[in-house]
Protein backbone atom coordinates (compact mmCIF):
# COMPACT_ATOMS: atom_id res chain seq x y z
CA UNK A 1 0.00 0.00 0.00
CA UNK A 2 1.45 3.39 -0.85
CA UNK A 3 2.11 6.04 1.73
CA UNK A 4 -0.52 8.43 0.40
CA UNK A 5 -3.29 5.86 0.79
CA UNK A 6 -2.12 5.12 4.31
CA UNK A 7 -2.07 8.79 5.25
CA UNK A 8 -5.57 9.24 3.80
CA UNK A 9 -6.86 6.36 5.90
CA UNK A 10 -5.05 7.81 8.89
CA UNK A 11 -6.69 11.22 8.48
CA UNK A 12 -10.17 9.83 7.91
CA UNK A 13 -9.94 7.43 10.83
CA UNK A 14 -8.80 10.30 13.06
CA UNK A 15 -12.02 12.16 12.19
CA UNK A 16 -14.03 9.08 13.07
CA UNK A 17 -12.28 9.03 16.44
CA UNK A 18 -13.09 12.71 17.05
CA UNK A 19 -16.73 12.25 16.07
CA UNK A 20 -17.37 9.14 18.11
CA UNK A 21 -16.31 10.79 21.36
CA UNK A 22 -17.80 14.24 20.87
CA UNK A 23 -20.56 13.94 23.48
CA UNK A 24 -19.95 11.75 26.50
CA UNK A 25 -21.50 12.06 29.96
CA UNK A 26 -18.92 12.40 32.77
CA UNK A 27 -20.12 9.11 34.18
CA UNK A 28 -18.69 7.26 31.22
CA UNK A 29 -15.30 8.95 31.02
CA UNK A 30 -13.50 6.23 32.95
CA UNK A 31 -15.05 3.26 31.12
CA UNK A 32 -14.50 5.00 27.81
CA UNK A 33 -10.86 5.69 28.56
CA UNK A 34 -10.50 2.07 29.53
CA UNK A 35 -12.18 0.83 26.33
CA UNK A 36 -10.03 3.00 24.04
CA UNK A 37 -7.07 1.84 26.07
CA UNK A 38 -7.95 -1.76 25.21
CA UNK A 39 -8.20 -0.90 21.51
CA UNK A 40 -4.62 0.30 21.15
CA UNK A 41 -3.58 -3.16 22.21
CA UNK A 42 -4.27 -3.84 18.54
CA UNK A 43 -0.53 -3.31 18.21
CA UNK A 44 -0.24 -7.00 19.02
CA UNK A 45 -1.08 -7.53 15.34
CA UNK A 46 2.26 -5.88 14.55
CA UNK A 47 4.07 -8.55 16.54
CA UNK A 48 2.09 -11.33 14.84
CA UNK A 49 2.89 -9.92 11.41
CA UNK A 50 6.66 -9.70 11.73
CA UNK A 51 7.61 -12.57 14.03
CA UNK A 52 8.05 -15.14 11.23
CA UNK A 53 10.33 -12.95 9.15
CA UNK A 54 12.47 -11.80 12.05
CA UNK A 55 15.58 -13.89 12.39
CA UNK A 56 17.55 -14.44 15.57
CA UNK A 57 16.65 -15.50 19.07
CA UNK A 58 16.68 -11.97 20.50
CA UNK A 59 14.18 -10.72 17.94
CA UNK A 60 11.86 -13.64 18.57
CA UNK A 61 12.02 -13.18 22.32
CA UNK A 62 11.34 -9.45 22.03
CA UNK A 63 8.36 -10.11 19.76
CA UNK A 64 6.89 -12.78 22.04
CA UNK A 65 7.11 -10.21 24.84
CA UNK A 66 5.51 -7.61 22.56
CA UNK A 67 2.66 -9.98 21.68
CA UNK A 68 2.19 -10.81 25.36
CA UNK A 69 2.15 -7.08 26.21
CA UNK A 70 -0.38 -6.37 23.47
CA UNK A 71 -2.57 -9.26 24.64
CA UNK A 72 -2.49 -8.02 28.25
CA UNK A 73 -3.51 -4.62 26.93
CA UNK A 74 -6.43 -5.97 24.87
CA UNK A 75 -7.77 -8.72 27.13
CA UNK A 76 -7.24 -6.87 30.40
CA UNK A 77 -8.60 -3.64 28.96
CA UNK A 78 -11.87 -5.08 27.72
CA UNK A 79 -12.41 -7.15 30.88
CA UNK A 80 -11.82 -4.21 33.19
CA UNK A 81 -14.17 -2.04 31.13
CA UNK A 82 -16.79 -4.75 31.30
CA UNK A 83 -16.46 -4.96 35.07
CA UNK A 84 -16.92 -1.20 35.40
CA UNK A 85 -19.97 -1.16 33.16
CA UNK A 86 -21.46 -4.17 34.91
CA UNK A 87 -22.00 -1.95 37.93
CA UNK A 88 -24.26 0.39 36.03
CA UNK A 89 -26.79 -2.27 35.24
CA UNK A 90 -29.15 -4.46 37.24
CA UNK A 91 -29.87 -1.90 39.95
CA UNK A 92 -32.45 -3.40 42.30
CA UNK A 93 -35.76 -1.52 42.53
CA UNK A 94 -36.02 1.04 45.38
CA UNK A 95 -38.33 -1.17 47.45
CA UNK A 96 -35.87 -4.02 47.53
CA UNK A 97 -33.01 -1.66 48.34
CA UNK A 98 -34.95 -0.24 51.29
CA UNK A 99 -35.75 -3.63 52.72
CA UNK A 100 -32.13 -4.60 52.58
CA UNK A 101 -31.08 -1.33 54.21
CA UNK A 102 -33.41 -2.01 57.12
CA UNK A 103 -32.07 -5.47 57.62
CA UNK A 104 -28.38 -4.60 57.69
CA UNK A 105 -28.01 -1.62 60.05
CA UNK A 106 -29.58 -3.63 62.86
CA UNK A 107 -26.27 -5.26 63.63
CA UNK A 108 -24.29 -2.13 62.77
CA UNK A 109 -26.22 -0.39 65.55
CA UNK A 110 -24.77 -2.55 68.31
Amino acid at each position, binding site marked *: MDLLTELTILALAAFVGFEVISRVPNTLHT*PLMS*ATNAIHGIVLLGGILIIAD*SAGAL*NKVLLVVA*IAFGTINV*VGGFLVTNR*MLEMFKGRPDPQAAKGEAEAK*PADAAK
Partner: protein
Amino acid sequence: MTVPPLASLLQEPDLISALYIVAFVLLILGLRGVTHPTTARRGNVIAAVGMAVAVIATLLTEEVGDYGLIALGIALGTVIGVPAARQVKMTAMPQMVALFNGVGGGAVALISYVEYRDALEAGANPELEKLIPILLAAIIGSVSFWGSNVAFGKLQELLPGKPISLPGQQFLNAAFLLVALGAAVAIAAGEESEGLFLLILLAAAVLGNMVVLPIGGADMPVVISLLNALTGVSAAAAGVALDNVALIVGGIIVGASGSILTNLMANAMNRSIPSIVAGGFGGVATSAGGGDDDGEAPPVHSTDAQSVAIALSYADKVVVAPGYGLAVAQAQHTVRELADELEKRDTEVSYAIHPVAGRMPGHMNVLLAEADVPYEALKEMDEINPEFEHTNVTLVIGANDVTNPAARDVTDSPIYGMPILDVDKSEKVIVFKRSMSTGFAGIANPLFHNENTELLFGDAKASVADVLAEVKEL
Protein backbone atom coordinates in the same frame (compact mmCIF):
# COMPACT_ATOMS: atom_id res chain seq x y z
CA MET B 1 -9.67 -21.27 -13.36
CA THR B 2 -10.18 -23.91 -10.73
CA VAL B 3 -11.81 -23.30 -7.41
CA PRO B 4 -8.97 -22.57 -4.96
CA PRO B 5 -8.61 -24.92 -2.01
CA LEU B 6 -9.89 -23.63 1.31
CA ALA B 7 -6.46 -22.81 2.69
CA SER B 8 -5.55 -20.44 -0.10
CA LEU B 9 -9.05 -18.96 -0.18
CA LEU B 10 -8.67 -18.08 3.49
CA GLN B 11 -5.37 -16.40 2.71
CA GLU B 12 -6.88 -14.35 -0.08
CA PRO B 13 -5.82 -10.71 0.54
CA ASP B 14 -9.32 -9.53 -0.37
CA LEU B 15 -10.84 -11.75 2.30
CA ILE B 16 -8.43 -10.39 4.88
CA SER B 17 -9.21 -6.82 3.86
CA ALA B 18 -12.92 -7.59 4.12
CA LEU B 19 -12.43 -9.01 7.62
CA TYR B 20 -10.50 -5.88 8.59
CA ILE B 21 -13.40 -3.75 7.39
CA VAL B 22 -15.79 -5.82 9.51
CA ALA B 23 -13.42 -5.33 12.45
CA PHE B 24 -13.33 -1.52 11.96
CA VAL B 25 -17.10 -1.30 11.79
CA LEU B 26 -17.40 -3.32 15.01
CA LEU B 27 -14.72 -1.27 16.78
CA ILE B 28 -16.34 2.03 15.82
CA LEU B 29 -19.89 0.89 16.62
CA GLY B 30 -18.62 -0.53 19.89
CA LEU B 31 -16.87 2.66 20.92
CA ARG B 32 -19.95 4.68 20.03
CA GLY B 33 -21.97 2.32 22.21
CA VAL B 34 -19.70 3.00 25.17
CA THR B 35 -20.54 6.71 24.99
CA HIS B 36 -24.19 6.11 26.02
CA PRO B 37 -25.16 4.67 29.42
CA THR B 38 -27.77 2.26 28.06
CA THR B 39 -25.60 0.77 25.32
CA ALA B 40 -22.22 0.96 27.06
CA ARG B 41 -21.91 -2.65 28.07
CA ARG B 42 -22.97 -4.02 24.72
CA GLY B 43 -20.65 -1.52 23.04
CA ASN B 44 -17.67 -2.83 24.92
CA VAL B 45 -18.50 -6.39 23.90
CA ILE B 46 -18.93 -5.35 20.27
CA ALA B 47 -15.54 -3.63 20.30
CA ALA B 48 -13.97 -6.76 21.81
CA VAL B 49 -15.49 -8.89 19.07
CA GLY B 50 -14.12 -6.42 16.51
CA MET B 51 -10.68 -6.85 18.02
CA ALA B 52 -10.99 -10.64 17.85
CA VAL B 53 -11.94 -10.41 14.16
CA ALA B 54 -8.86 -8.24 13.51
CA VAL B 55 -6.62 -10.76 15.25
CA ILE B 56 -8.09 -13.70 13.31
CA ALA B 57 -7.76 -11.86 10.00
CA THR B 58 -4.12 -11.10 10.78
CA LEU B 59 -3.39 -14.72 11.70
CA LEU B 60 -4.71 -15.72 8.24
CA THR B 61 -2.31 -13.35 6.46
CA GLU B 62 0.07 -15.20 4.19
CA GLU B 63 3.38 -14.02 5.60
CA VAL B 64 2.39 -14.93 9.15
CA GLY B 65 4.15 -17.93 10.61
CA ASP B 66 5.75 -19.09 13.83
CA TYR B 67 2.32 -19.90 15.18
CA GLY B 68 3.84 -21.60 18.22
CA LEU B 69 5.56 -18.43 19.36
CA ILE B 70 2.47 -16.35 18.61
CA ALA B 71 0.38 -18.73 20.70
CA LEU B 72 2.98 -18.50 23.46
CA GLY B 73 2.81 -14.71 23.47
CA ILE B 74 -0.98 -14.64 23.46
CA ALA B 75 -1.15 -17.30 26.18
CA LEU B 76 1.32 -15.39 28.37
CA GLY B 77 -0.65 -12.19 27.91
CA THR B 78 -3.93 -13.91 28.71
CA VAL B 79 -2.58 -15.63 31.79
CA ILE B 80 -1.30 -12.32 33.12
CA GLY B 81 -4.05 -10.02 31.89
CA VAL B 82 -7.21 -11.92 32.79
CA PRO B 83 -6.57 -12.43 36.52
CA ALA B 84 -5.24 -8.87 36.80
CA ALA B 85 -8.42 -7.49 35.29
CA ARG B 86 -10.69 -9.82 37.26
CA GLN B 87 -9.13 -9.27 40.65
CA VAL B 88 -8.31 -5.58 40.67
CA LYS B 89 -10.41 -3.65 43.17
CA MET B 90 -12.63 -0.93 41.77
CA THR B 91 -10.65 1.60 43.79
CA ALA B 92 -7.44 0.54 42.07
CA MET B 93 -8.94 0.84 38.60
CA PRO B 94 -7.02 3.96 37.53
CA GLN B 95 -3.60 2.43 38.09
CA MET B 96 -4.72 -0.74 36.33
CA VAL B 97 -5.65 1.29 33.27
CA ALA B 98 -2.26 3.01 33.52
CA LEU B 99 -0.54 -0.35 33.58
CA PHE B 100 -2.49 -1.75 30.62
CA ASN B 101 -1.69 1.42 28.74
CA GLY B 102 1.98 1.06 29.59
CA VAL B 103 2.31 -2.47 28.22
CA GLY B 104 0.64 -1.29 24.99
CA GLY B 105 3.30 1.40 24.65
CA GLY B 106 5.97 -1.15 25.49
CA ALA B 107 4.72 -3.45 22.73
CA VAL B 108 4.96 -0.59 20.21
CA ALA B 109 8.51 0.25 21.28
CA LEU B 110 9.61 -3.41 21.07
CA ILE B 111 8.05 -3.93 17.65
CA SER B 112 9.67 -0.82 16.23
CA TYR B 113 13.04 -1.89 17.63
CA VAL B 114 12.80 -5.37 16.09
CA GLU B 115 11.62 -3.88 12.80
CA TYR B 116 14.73 -1.71 12.72
CA ARG B 117 17.02 -4.61 13.64
CA ASP B 118 15.48 -6.66 10.82
CA ALA B 119 16.17 -3.88 8.35
CA LEU B 120 19.81 -3.61 9.45
CA GLU B 121 20.11 -7.39 9.19
CA ALA B 122 18.83 -7.15 5.64
CA GLY B 123 21.64 -4.71 4.92
CA ALA B 124 20.44 -1.12 5.23
CA ASN B 125 18.14 1.41 6.84
CA PRO B 126 14.55 1.03 5.69
CA GLU B 127 13.30 3.57 3.17
CA LEU B 128 12.28 6.88 4.74
CA GLU B 129 8.55 6.33 4.46
CA LYS B 130 8.99 3.34 6.77
CA LEU B 131 11.91 4.64 8.79
CA ILE B 132 10.24 7.83 9.98
CA PRO B 133 7.17 6.07 11.39
CA ILE B 134 9.42 3.46 13.01
CA LEU B 135 11.41 6.20 14.73
CA LEU B 136 8.22 7.97 15.83
CA ALA B 137 6.73 4.75 17.16
CA ALA B 138 9.95 4.05 19.09
CA ILE B 139 10.02 7.47 20.76
CA ILE B 140 6.32 7.70 21.60
CA GLY B 141 6.00 4.06 22.61
CA SER B 142 8.94 4.29 24.99
CA VAL B 143 7.71 7.55 26.56
CA SER B 144 4.28 6.01 27.02
CA PHE B 145 5.60 2.79 28.54
CA TRP B 146 7.76 4.49 31.15
CA GLY B 147 5.37 7.36 31.77
CA SER B 148 2.51 4.93 32.42
CA ASN B 149 4.65 2.88 34.78
CA VAL B 150 5.48 5.97 36.81
CA ALA B 151 1.78 6.91 36.83
CA PHE B 152 1.02 3.40 38.09
CA GLY B 153 3.69 3.69 40.77
CA LYS B 154 2.28 7.01 41.96
CA LEU B 155 -1.33 5.86 42.10
CA GLN B 156 -0.37 2.58 43.75
CA GLU B 157 1.59 4.74 46.20
CA LEU B 158 4.83 2.94 45.45
CA LEU B 159 6.08 6.42 44.61
CA PRO B 160 5.03 9.58 46.46
CA GLY B 161 1.85 11.15 45.07
CA LYS B 162 3.17 14.64 45.60
CA PRO B 163 5.03 16.36 42.80
CA ILE B 164 8.71 15.44 42.71
CA SER B 165 10.81 17.85 40.78
CA LEU B 166 14.45 18.40 40.16
CA PRO B 167 16.09 21.76 39.72
CA GLY B 168 16.21 22.68 36.05
CA GLN B 169 13.60 20.05 35.29
CA GLN B 170 12.24 21.77 32.17
CA PHE B 171 15.75 22.17 30.82
CA LEU B 172 16.57 18.50 31.46
CA ASN B 173 13.33 17.35 29.83
CA ALA B 174 14.09 19.44 26.78
CA ALA B 175 17.62 18.02 26.71
CA PHE B 176 16.40 14.41 26.73
CA LEU B 177 13.81 15.16 24.08
CA LEU B 178 16.56 16.70 21.95
CA VAL B 179 18.79 13.65 22.43
CA ALA B 180 15.97 11.34 21.29
CA LEU B 181 15.07 13.55 18.33
CA GLY B 182 18.72 14.16 17.45
CA ALA B 183 19.48 10.46 17.32
CA ALA B 184 16.32 9.91 15.25
CA VAL B 185 17.35 12.61 12.79
CA ALA B 186 20.82 11.10 12.53
CA ILE B 187 19.34 7.72 11.63
CA ALA B 188 16.91 9.31 9.20
CA ALA B 189 19.86 11.15 7.60
CA GLY B 190 21.46 7.81 6.78
CA GLU B 191 23.32 6.71 9.88
CA GLU B 192 22.92 2.94 10.24
CA SER B 193 23.36 2.19 13.89
CA GLU B 194 21.55 -0.03 16.32
CA GLY B 195 23.31 1.83 19.13
CA LEU B 196 21.71 5.11 18.08
CA PHE B 197 18.32 3.41 17.99
CA LEU B 198 18.83 2.13 21.53
CA LEU B 199 19.85 5.64 22.53
CA ILE B 200 16.49 6.87 21.20
CA LEU B 201 14.62 4.30 23.28
CA LEU B 202 16.70 5.12 26.33
CA ALA B 203 16.38 8.91 26.07
CA ALA B 204 12.64 8.54 25.52
CA ALA B 205 12.45 6.25 28.56
CA VAL B 206 14.17 8.81 30.77
CA LEU B 207 11.92 11.49 29.33
CA GLY B 208 8.80 9.45 30.12
CA ASN B 209 9.93 9.08 33.73
CA MET B 210 10.93 12.71 34.10
CA VAL B 211 7.74 14.11 32.62
CA VAL B 212 5.38 12.12 34.83
CA LEU B 213 7.36 12.16 38.10
CA PRO B 214 6.78 15.84 38.85
CA ILE B 215 3.05 15.64 38.17
CA GLY B 216 0.85 15.79 41.25
CA GLY B 217 -1.60 13.00 41.98
CA ALA B 218 -4.63 15.16 41.25
CA ASP B 219 -3.53 15.64 37.66
CA MET B 220 -2.82 11.95 37.14
CA PRO B 221 -6.14 11.08 35.42
CA VAL B 222 -5.42 13.63 32.72
CA VAL B 223 -1.91 12.28 32.32
CA ILE B 224 -3.12 8.69 31.97
CA SER B 225 -5.60 9.79 29.34
CA LEU B 226 -2.87 11.70 27.52
CA LEU B 227 -0.53 8.70 27.60
CA ASN B 228 -3.42 6.58 26.34
CA ALA B 229 -3.82 8.87 23.33
CA LEU B 230 -0.06 8.82 22.76
CA THR B 231 0.05 5.03 22.74
CA GLY B 232 -2.73 5.11 20.14
CA VAL B 233 -0.70 7.45 17.94
CA SER B 234 2.41 5.28 18.32
CA ALA B 235 0.40 2.18 17.31
CA ALA B 236 -0.80 4.05 14.22
CA ALA B 237 2.80 5.00 13.38
CA ALA B 238 3.78 1.34 13.70
CA GLY B 239 0.90 0.57 11.34
CA VAL B 240 2.30 2.89 8.68
CA ALA B 241 5.72 1.27 9.10
CA LEU B 242 4.30 -2.25 8.78
CA ASP B 243 1.79 -1.39 6.04
CA ASN B 244 -1.06 -2.64 8.18
CA VAL B 245 -4.41 -0.84 7.96
CA ALA B 246 -5.82 -2.36 11.15
CA LEU B 247 -3.01 -0.86 13.21
CA ILE B 248 -3.39 2.50 11.50
CA VAL B 249 -7.15 2.68 12.02
CA GLY B 250 -7.23 1.17 15.52
CA GLY B 251 -4.30 3.27 16.70
CA ILE B 252 -5.42 6.62 15.35
CA ILE B 253 -9.02 6.20 16.56
CA VAL B 254 -7.59 5.86 20.06
CA GLY B 255 -5.21 8.75 19.42
CA ALA B 256 -8.05 11.02 18.31
CA SER B 257 -10.69 9.98 20.83
CA GLY B 258 -8.07 9.89 23.57
CA SER B 259 -7.02 13.47 22.92
CA ILE B 260 -10.64 14.62 23.05
CA LEU B 261 -11.15 12.76 26.29
CA THR B 262 -7.95 14.28 27.72
CA ASN B 263 -9.24 17.70 26.82
CA LEU B 264 -12.62 17.08 28.43
CA MET B 265 -10.91 15.96 31.63
CA ALA B 266 -8.49 18.87 31.69
CA ASN B 267 -11.40 21.27 31.17
CA ALA B 268 -13.29 19.67 34.04
CA MET B 269 -10.35 20.62 36.26
CA ASN B 270 -9.72 23.95 34.59
CA ARG B 271 -6.17 22.91 33.86
CA SER B 272 -4.39 23.26 30.58
CA ILE B 273 -2.60 20.22 29.22
CA PRO B 274 0.67 22.07 28.55
CA SER B 275 0.79 23.38 32.11
CA ILE B 276 0.19 19.88 33.50
CA VAL B 277 2.92 18.39 31.37
CA ALA B 278 5.27 21.28 32.09
CA GLY B 279 5.56 20.01 35.63
CA GLY B 280 3.45 19.54 38.71
CA PHE B 281 1.42 22.38 40.06
CA GLY B 282 3.94 24.87 38.77
CA GLY B 283 6.85 24.43 41.17
CA VAL B 284 6.95 27.48 43.45
CA ALA B 285 3.21 27.64 44.06
CA THR B 286 3.23 24.16 45.56
CA SER B 287 5.27 25.20 48.54
CA ALA B 288 3.53 28.58 48.87
CA GLY B 289 0.11 26.97 49.03
CA GLY B 290 1.30 23.92 50.92
CA GLY B 291 1.79 23.41 54.62
CA ASP B 292 3.60 26.70 55.34
CA ASP B 293 0.66 28.57 56.82
CA ASP B 294 -0.49 25.73 59.05
CA GLY B 295 0.76 27.52 62.16
CA GLU B 296 -1.52 30.52 61.68
CA ALA B 297 -4.60 28.53 60.66
CA PRO B 298 -7.57 28.98 62.99
CA PRO B 299 -8.50 25.94 65.06
CA VAL B 300 -10.83 23.27 63.72
CA HIS B 301 -14.08 22.22 65.37
CA SER B 302 -14.31 18.52 65.92
CA THR B 303 -17.58 16.80 66.60
CA ASP B 304 -19.00 13.38 67.47
CA ALA B 305 -21.39 10.93 65.86
CA GLN B 306 -24.31 11.89 68.08
CA SER B 307 -24.15 15.60 67.23
CA VAL B 308 -23.92 14.73 63.56
CA ALA B 309 -26.97 12.49 63.86
CA ILE B 310 -28.95 15.27 65.56
CA ALA B 311 -27.96 17.77 62.87
CA LEU B 312 -29.01 15.28 60.22
CA SER B 313 -32.33 14.58 61.89
CA TYR B 314 -33.27 18.28 61.71
CA ALA B 315 -32.16 18.62 58.11
CA ASP B 316 -34.57 18.75 55.18
CA LYS B 317 -31.86 18.55 52.58
CA VAL B 318 -28.60 16.65 52.89
CA VAL B 319 -25.87 16.41 50.30
CA VAL B 320 -23.12 13.80 50.39
CA ALA B 321 -19.83 14.85 48.77
CA PRO B 322 -17.87 11.62 48.40
CA GLY B 323 -14.20 11.34 47.55
CA TYR B 324 -11.54 8.73 47.14
CA GLY B 325 -11.30 8.29 50.93
CA LEU B 326 -14.84 6.94 50.93
CA ALA B 327 -13.87 4.36 48.36
CA VAL B 328 -10.70 3.32 50.19
CA ALA B 329 -12.66 2.84 53.42
CA GLN B 330 -15.27 0.87 51.41
CA ALA B 331 -17.84 3.13 53.07
CA GLN B 332 -20.12 3.44 50.04
CA HIS B 333 -22.55 0.77 51.24
CA THR B 334 -22.83 2.24 54.72
CA VAL B 335 -23.34 5.70 53.24
CA ARG B 336 -26.16 4.36 51.12
CA GLU B 337 -27.78 2.81 54.20
CA LEU B 338 -27.54 6.14 56.01
CA ALA B 339 -29.12 7.86 53.03
CA ASP B 340 -31.95 5.32 52.98
CA GLU B 341 -32.54 5.84 56.70
CA LEU B 342 -32.68 9.63 56.25
CA GLU B 343 -34.99 9.34 53.28
CA LYS B 344 -37.39 7.34 55.39
CA ARG B 345 -37.58 10.46 57.55
CA ASP B 346 -38.40 12.59 54.51
CA THR B 347 -34.95 14.10 54.26
CA GLU B 348 -33.85 14.67 50.70
CA VAL B 349 -30.44 13.11 50.08
CA SER B 350 -28.35 13.63 46.99
CA TYR B 351 -24.74 12.97 46.07
CA ALA B 352 -22.47 15.69 44.71
CA ILE B 353 -20.16 14.15 42.17
CA HIS B 354 -17.15 16.19 41.23
CA PRO B 355 -15.99 15.29 37.71
CA VAL B 356 -12.65 14.10 39.05
CA ALA B 357 -13.80 12.70 42.40
CA GLY B 358 -12.00 9.47 42.97
CA ARG B 359 -8.89 9.20 40.89
CA MET B 360 -10.39 9.32 37.44
CA PRO B 361 -13.29 11.15 35.88
CA GLY B 362 -16.41 9.11 36.49
CA HIS B 363 -14.57 6.87 38.98
CA MET B 364 -16.94 7.88 41.81
CA ASN B 365 -20.00 7.03 39.71
CA VAL B 366 -18.62 3.54 39.23
CA LEU B 367 -17.97 3.12 42.94
CA LEU B 368 -21.39 4.40 44.02
CA ALA B 369 -23.14 2.33 41.38
CA GLU B 370 -21.36 -0.64 42.94
CA ALA B 371 -23.18 0.22 46.21
CA ASP B 372 -26.56 0.44 44.43
CA VAL B 373 -26.92 4.17 44.89
CA PRO B 374 -29.75 5.14 42.53
CA TYR B 375 -28.49 6.88 39.41
CA GLU B 376 -30.94 9.79 39.87
CA ALA B 377 -29.44 10.70 43.26
CA LEU B 378 -26.03 11.36 41.69
CA LYS B 379 -25.79 15.04 40.77
CA GLU B 380 -22.98 16.42 38.66
CA MET B 381 -21.08 19.46 39.88
CA ASP B 382 -22.85 22.08 37.77
CA GLU B 383 -26.20 20.73 38.82
CA ILE B 384 -25.51 20.55 42.55
CA ASN B 385 -23.47 23.72 43.14
CA PRO B 386 -26.47 26.14 43.09
CA GLU B 387 -28.24 23.82 45.54
CA PHE B 388 -25.66 24.06 48.34
CA GLU B 389 -27.14 27.41 49.51
CA HIS B 390 -30.39 25.59 50.33
CA THR B 391 -28.67 22.58 51.87
CA ASN B 392 -28.84 22.10 55.63
CA VAL B 393 -26.04 19.60 56.06
CA THR B 394 -23.32 18.54 53.67
CA LEU B 395 -21.38 15.41 54.50
CA VAL B 396 -17.90 15.49 53.00
CA ILE B 397 -16.69 11.92 53.13
CA GLY B 398 -13.13 11.25 52.14
CA ALA B 399 -13.06 14.18 49.73
CA ASN B 400 -10.58 16.98 50.12
CA ASP B 401 -9.10 18.82 47.15
CA VAL B 402 -12.39 18.90 45.23
CA THR B 403 -14.03 20.81 48.10
CA ASN B 404 -11.13 23.18 48.75
CA PRO B 405 -12.44 26.77 48.61
CA ALA B 406 -8.87 27.96 48.00
CA ALA B 407 -9.41 26.90 44.40
CA ARG B 408 -12.06 29.63 44.20
CA ASP B 409 -10.70 32.33 46.52
CA VAL B 410 -6.93 32.16 46.85
CA THR B 411 -5.34 33.40 43.66
CA ASP B 412 -1.87 32.07 44.46
CA SER B 413 -3.11 28.63 45.46
CA PRO B 414 -1.73 25.87 43.26
CA ILE B 415 -5.23 24.67 42.54
CA TYR B 416 -6.67 28.16 41.94
CA GLY B 417 -9.22 28.00 39.13
CA MET B 418 -10.07 24.34 39.51
CA PRO B 419 -13.86 24.07 39.70
CA ILE B 420 -14.91 22.74 43.10
CA LEU B 421 -18.01 21.63 44.91
CA ASP B 422 -19.21 24.70 46.84
CA VAL B 423 -19.85 22.65 49.99
CA ASP B 424 -18.85 25.59 52.19
CA LYS B 425 -21.99 27.43 51.10
CA SER B 426 -24.28 25.01 52.87
CA GLU B 427 -25.56 25.74 56.37
CA LYS B 428 -23.37 23.11 58.01
CA VAL B 429 -20.51 21.05 56.67
CA ILE B 430 -19.41 17.83 58.32
CA VAL B 431 -16.07 16.51 57.15
CA PHE B 432 -15.35 12.84 57.75
CA LYS B 433 -11.59 12.63 58.00
CA ARG B 434 -9.01 10.18 59.13
CA SER B 435 -6.59 12.86 60.32
CA MET B 436 -5.58 16.44 59.64
CA SER B 437 -3.42 15.51 56.68
CA THR B 438 -3.56 17.30 53.37
CA GLY B 439 -5.20 15.80 50.29
CA PHE B 440 -3.66 13.75 47.53
CA ALA B 441 -2.37 16.93 45.91
CA GLY B 442 -0.70 17.92 49.19
CA ILE B 443 -2.52 21.24 49.58
CA ALA B 444 -3.98 22.66 52.84
CA ASN B 445 -7.76 23.03 52.86
CA PRO B 446 -9.19 26.17 54.53
CA LEU B 447 -12.63 24.52 54.48
CA PHE B 448 -11.66 22.61 57.64
CA HIS B 449 -11.17 25.85 59.56
CA ASN B 450 -14.48 27.49 58.62
CA GLU B 451 -17.02 28.49 61.27
CA ASN B 452 -19.71 26.25 59.81
CA THR B 453 -17.43 23.24 59.38
CA GLU B 454 -17.18 20.42 61.88
CA LEU B 455 -14.80 17.50 61.62
CA LEU B 456 -15.57 13.95 62.56
CA PHE B 457 -12.26 12.14 62.87
CA GLY B 458 -11.84 8.44 62.27
CA ASP B 459 -12.18 5.77 59.63
CA ALA B 460 -14.86 6.86 57.17
CA LYS B 461 -16.74 3.59 57.29
CA ALA B 462 -16.73 3.31 61.07
CA SER B 463 -17.75 6.96 61.47
CA VAL B 464 -20.63 6.67 59.03
CA ALA B 465 -21.77 3.48 60.77
CA ASP B 466 -21.71 5.31 64.14
CA VAL B 467 -23.76 8.16 62.72
CA LEU B 468 -26.18 5.69 61.21
CA ALA B 469 -26.60 3.94 64.58
CA GLU B 470 -27.24 7.28 66.31
CA VAL B 471 -29.76 8.32 63.68
CA LYS B 472 -31.68 5.10 64.23
CA GLU B 473 -31.80 5.74 67.98
CA LEU B 474 -33.40 9.18 67.60
